[in-house]
């Protein structure tokens, strides 16, 4: 690959996993209580996709990396303050709801439109990355819908590894049942990958990368158009946190032998 790849990563923001989430009724369906007040992070699987993309882009000279993100502008800005310090990318923001209760079909339409609007994007070098699921909707449907809209028929989900080959093809490892990987060979771009966790650690914060990114991120956020997200025929009849709460028996006064005996009996029941 002499000209490098054009890598587009789709990823949005989700509430910090440590926050308590409580559903409330909103005008178009359920929403999270104090949603705009909750601290947000880049969706974990999308973040893995971004780190893998950045790693690939640095290895293959001439590659370009875009992060296409659908989310409320204020939340995107907050998350970019940290993410932008980790890897170099160009942000393509779309100011719309990032709620887990939004319809993935509508979100996919916005993402596909945003990708198609990227100037100079070369389909023959195009790799579309994203998380295989999100920590909000958790549906695992959005990336496939984006791929169909972009007419990309080589799609992979639950990807843990992408190995570019000297002949321009790729080896792809996808998670399947039973802790195994399916190995595929794809002849080359365009292809779409929904990433699982991959193999890379979180990159360290680099203030210089952050400074460089923010020069383009802030104007992009200012230009981002606010778009309503259609409900798309999806109706919520109820949304509630799980009611089950256990009465935990805390055992402090048994020896390890006695505990082992009790656990062994429980396993054998």
């Amino acid at each position: 690959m002499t000209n490098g790849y054009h890598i587009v990563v789709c990823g949005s923001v989700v509430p910090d996993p440590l926050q308590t989430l409580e559903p409330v009724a909103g005008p178009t369906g359920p929403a999270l209580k104090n949603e705009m007040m909750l601290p947000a992070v880049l969706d974990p699987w999308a973040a893995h996709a971004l780190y893998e993309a950045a790693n690939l882009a640095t290895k293959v000279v001439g590659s370009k990396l875009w992060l296409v993100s659908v989310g409320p502008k204020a939340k995107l800005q907050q998350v970019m303050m940290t993410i932008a310090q980790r890897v170099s990318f160009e942000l393509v923001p779309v100011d719309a709801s990032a709620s887990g209760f939004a319809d993935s079909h509508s979100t996919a339409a916005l993402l596909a439109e945003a990708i198609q609007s990227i100037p100079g994007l070369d389909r023959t070098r195009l790799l579309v990355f994203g998380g295989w699921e999100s920590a909000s909707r958790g549906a695992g449907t959005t990336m496939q819908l984006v791929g169909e809209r972009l007419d990309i028929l080589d799609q992979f989900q639950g990807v843990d590894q992408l190995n570019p080959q000297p002949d321009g093809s790729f080896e792809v490892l996808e998670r399947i049942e039973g802790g195994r990987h399916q190995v595929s060979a794809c002849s080359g771009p365009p292809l779409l990958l929904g990433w699982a966790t991959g193999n890379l650690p979180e990159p360290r914060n680099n203030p210089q990368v952050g400074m460089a990114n923010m020069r383009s991120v802030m104007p992009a956020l200012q230009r981002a158009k606010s778009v309503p997200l259609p409900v798309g025929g999806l109706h919520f009849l109820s949304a509630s946190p799980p009611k089950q709460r256990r009465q935990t028996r805390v055992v402090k006064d048994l020896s390890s032998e006695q505990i082992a005996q009790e656990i062994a009996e429980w396993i054998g029941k």
Partner: protein
Amino acid sequence: MAQHILFLAHVAEGANTLTKASHEVLGAALKLSSQLGAHLTIGLIGHDVAAAAETIAAAGADKVFAVFGPDFATARYMSDAAAAEAICRSAAADLILAPASSRFMRVLPGVAYRLNGCADTHVTSLEALNGELRATRWYYRQRIEAVIRREPRPWIVLLEPGCEAAWTGTPGPVKLEELSPPKLTARTVVTGIRAPGSDAQTIRPDADLLFVAGAGWTKKQSDGKTHVAQAEKLILDFLRASGSSLGGSKSLVDQTGESQAVLRFMTHLNQVGQTGSTPRHPKGLSMCCHGEEPHVVGWRFINERRAVNLDPNCGWARGKADVLYVADAFEVLANLNALLTPLTQTSLEAMTQKA
């Protein structure tokens, strides 16, 4: 109201039968057909589907459509999407039920787009109430449960395994209607499956027990030293003796990428929780894990839960486990291994080494 229901399935990988999850979805499809008075059609995909079709002949479907041949032997987006699209168009169903296998999870959302319909995955139950179809699924990684309905049709619903009783019936002859999707030039070839060796396979979806190891196994113990080798041995011995499936907390599996002392068999595939899996096992046993909320959301479908931890105020104590044992996990697991494998004293020897 659904008038036509399609049950869509693929044969099990490397076999010519249907998976247990497929039989569960067939049970759900038959129940709904009966409730709604709807017609049931079956669609099958695979290299050779004849034997699989015979096993579900007694389901009494109006028609059985099939797309088969070497092109459909492996799970590949392009060919699977073409096959599923051909079956769905021929069946003209307004509700399409399929198991949430990795093969169908990859491809059916895209098929929904082609059919101008919609798709929902990870559905845990589907019911008809006053002729209206309602699906239940979780949002925000098993932290909020919602009931939804959809207007667009066809509606493709992928049901999670373990949520319905598996249908059983007597095998018999069946008339297959073969469909031929348009021939496409495939740019992707599935070259194989990469799996750990049989002795290193720690993920067992059908196991009765989930054993979760936390980061505490690799931390300094009461003697001020780490005992990672002993931890590895104890855990592997337990997995072998109990036949359980191994899960891990994020903090433990992340150590692999952070150049810390690690359990060598623990990978991101084992990770349970907010950013990992949500396995389904009847029982779960956690050791050396704090039971923080992002991890415990992955336990949503584990019914009976016990934990061993030195901290009596850890997350498990706050209504997340049925029993919390405040004890040294090394000692407990060594004794447990001795009880489960009384003929071998290897774990106790490992414990002696630590002492």
